[in-house]
């Protein structure tokens, strides 16, 4: 299946050709390498479904970037987005951003020192993971949902796919403590670990008026970093809110008109007069969750073995090596226990959607085409299907135009945000750290 990224890159090249400023910015070899590294995994798999697959891989060591002034993405509204709302008791500062970033990339903040936030929210993969459908936590434990992107997370009223949190400051602790994510045994364990790592010495006190690492300050620091990851001023924004009538092609404009009109995507993925969040901050039943919970699978699963090599494997064989039964997922119901909330999931923002495959709450769809096809069919009928979901009767051309429009939603500062993330040190255990798992008799 065609991945959306090549189209995006072509658009990027076109952008370079028509924009002399951009040509200046990306002129050097280093910048060209960075430009190549920030949009998607360096382990590129476009064309992997054929035996003509040719790699265009990037080395891990090419992940080099430069620290950016992230605070301005909180304090200065970006074209297409509203002002960032901040809690009065956690106003962003440079010190908080930098501390939050340090924590975000620190793999030591997990029970066995192997998992940071960034392992599931990978910067160049849209701050999600393009390489797996559903997240995998510590010791390989299964997480039943796709890692959501954290781009523009500041503009969500509800957090997680089931909306179970409403504050970034609080949300940060869920993955830190979840048994199948970072698996820390307690809040105190995390706090004590941070206190023992020399890189954090004095940083909390500096950021929080003398207050050291606590449950509150850890949550606040992580919240501020994530709150800074705002990305807009896309081609669409320049066309819609920037009065640049040439920012979109005719097909993209047609796609926008479908998005707001016939296809009715904008009923949930809101576009306002002054800005567009592309989410209504609500939860809906599209039928996808229902089908996954209640549907009957075919007896075989198509499995890819190598480029262009597929086999249909009996599910009996697959189940023989499935460690745990596939976890059921009833969506919002799991939070409210209200039967009317079964299989409702949060409306994701579509900003940077070209960067955040795979799609849906469980990553079931690899491409935007599959997503549009699903909605074009009217989702999947069930007693709780949102009345907003109905067959769309889109033509082939209209589907392509709709997809073309969604690919104009990539923010202009993605490169800056990802490069900033590349510049962040990855916190790995070193000899400077306490040897928490082994007595000194085993160390040097």
């Amino acid at each position: 299946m065609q991945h959306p990224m090549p189209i995006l890159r072509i658009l990027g090249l076109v952008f370079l050709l028509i924009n002399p400023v951009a040509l200046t910015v990306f002129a050097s070899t280093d910048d060209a390498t960075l430009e190549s590294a920030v949009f998607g995994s360096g382990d590129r798999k476009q064309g992997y479904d054929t035996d003509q697959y040719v790699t265009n891989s990037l080395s891990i060591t090419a992940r080099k970037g430069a620290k950016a002034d992230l605070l301005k993405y909180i304090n200065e509204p970006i074209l297409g987005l509203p002002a960032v709302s901040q809690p009065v008791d956690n106003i962003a500062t440079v010190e908080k951003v930098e501390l939050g970033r340090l924590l975000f990339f620190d793999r030591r903040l997990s029970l066995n020192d192997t998992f940071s936030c960034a392992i599931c929210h990978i910067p160049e993969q849209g701050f999600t993971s393009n390489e797996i459908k559903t997240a995998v936590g510590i010791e390989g434990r299964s997480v039943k949902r796709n890692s959501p992107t954290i781009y523009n997370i500041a503009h969500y009223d509800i957090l997680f796919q089931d909306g179970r949190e409403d504050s970034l400051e609080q949300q940060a602790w869920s993955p830190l403590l979840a048994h199948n994510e970072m698996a820390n045994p307690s809040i105190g364990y995390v706090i004590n670990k941070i206190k023992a790592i020399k890189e954090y010495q004095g940083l909390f006190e500096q950021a929080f008026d003398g207050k050291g690492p606590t449950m509150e300050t850890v949550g606040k620091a992580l919240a501020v970093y994530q709150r800074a990851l705002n990305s807009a001023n896309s081609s669409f924004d320049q066309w819609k809110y920037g009065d640049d009538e040439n920012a979109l092609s005719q097909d993209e404009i047609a796609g926008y008109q479908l998005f707001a009109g016939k296809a009715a995507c904008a009923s949930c993925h809101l576009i306002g007069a002054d800005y567009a969040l592309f989410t209504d901050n609500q939860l809906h039943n599209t039928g996808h969750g229902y089908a996954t919970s209640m549907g009957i699978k075919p007896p075989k699963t198509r499995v890819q073995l190598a480029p262009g090599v597929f086999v249909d494997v009996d599910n009996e064989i697959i189940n023989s090596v499935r460690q745990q039964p596939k976890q059921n997922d009833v969506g919002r119901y799991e939070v409210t226990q209200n039967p009317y909330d079964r299989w409702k999931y949060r409306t994701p923002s579509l900003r940077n959607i070209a960067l955040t495959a795979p799609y849906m709450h469980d990553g079931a769809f690899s491409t935007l085409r599959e997503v549009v096809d699903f909605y074009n069919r009217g989702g999947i009928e069930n007693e709780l299907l949102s009345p907003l979901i109905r067959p769309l009767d889109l033509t082939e051309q209209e589907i392509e135009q709709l997809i073309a429009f969604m690919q104009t939603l990539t923010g202009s500062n993605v490169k800056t945000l990802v490069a900033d993330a590349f510049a962040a040190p990855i916190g790995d255990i070193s000899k400077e750290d306490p040897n928490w798992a082994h007595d000194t008799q085993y160390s040097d």
Partner: protein
Amino acid sequence: MKKTLPFTWLRSTTASMLVAVVALAGSFHSNTLQADETCMSPYMAKIVGQEDYVYVWTLGVEGMGDEQDKLVTVSVNPDAKDYGEVVHTLSVGGRNEAHHSGLTDDRRFLFAGGLDSNKIFIFDIHSNPREPKLHKVVTDFVEKTGGMVGPHTFYALPGRIMVSALSNNADHGGRTGMAEYTSEGEFVASHWFPTDDNLRGAEKSGNIADGYGYDVRALPRRNVMLTSSFTGWSNYMMDFGQMLSDAEAMKRFGNTMIVWDLHTRKPKKVFDVPGAPLEIRCAWSAHNNYCFTTTALTSQMWLIYEDEAGEWQAEAVADIGDPSKVPLPVDISITADDTGMWVQTFMDGKTRYFDITDPHNPVQKYEHVIGSQVNMISQSWDGKRAYFTTSLLGNWDKTGKDDEQWFKLYHWNGNQLEHQFTIDFYELKLGRAHQMRFGAYSLYSQAPNSSDTVVSQLDK
């Protein structure tokens, strides 16, 4: 009656000089540097006769026994009164995804890795071969290597251990490299695998340069090192059934092998070998300039060989079982005379014996179901004893009644395998049995069941 080669431990500096001399000479006298279990590094000291112990690197299981990884020592000398029994266990803390282990050139230490925790446990197996001690734990593998994750193969070079990795700390994908450590466990250097943006001087001979890693082996007489490619942390730690149903994840498997210059550690040529080439086993004879691998997903046997023009080539030479049923070939082992190769297939629990007298045309001669699942094999130098274990990866093993975890010994009479004993690792609450390495008193000039050195043997 044990036979013992001279104890040939070299200090690392001396050993480093030796490898340089070997490389410059371009030839290698296999008779002077040998190993007991076949397919081991030719730089290692060797047990000629009967091994006394097999060390089994074992995965802890949540909810079972002490739940942590351990080195299990099994007595395997038929003359011992505890023959066929577990005589010692050493728990190391945590479930590290215990996987492979490797001996130093002098065989005094066993390096054992954790694919998840990235720890390297270095066991002293010479002070008392019956009761290994945890000598040192390397906890900073990721930090020292600059971001490699999943220390996999530990392969002895003179004074060095080459450690191939599986993943990285940036995205937990498959791009990775290999690290060089001293036999004392000190980091020396990182060698990243070639990717398209930086082939590091290698020739991309086909379509693929994925930068993935798995095994590492050397043919010193040809100054060649070979590496293969598997998958990254996100896949090897994922529930196997879940992964098979994840179309994105299934794209993230290695499809390459790399020929390296052993002396300079520089990659020379990247081959397309589609479908996750895993274990590499090299021929032993002085004139057999080739190695084999098998592809886990596409179930093929591949030959990596030096042609008459001196150019290295990769060729698919046989199918293993019915590839459409994905039998999943895992560990392989070549006989000491290079005429036969054992191939384990995990899904059907079989071991298969191939005649590889003509390496370009292997022919399967025999197969036997070892159990509901099988992974590793270690065969003795004389080919008469074959040990088998079960576990593949903590989250890939079979479930329910098919999740057998054992250590088995078979005798091979040339025509068929004869079962000798089974140790049920679940019944003993030990965990999942994975890789095996041999130990013997004779290596250290010790009498059986003693930690005392028999001085009189040192000069033999």
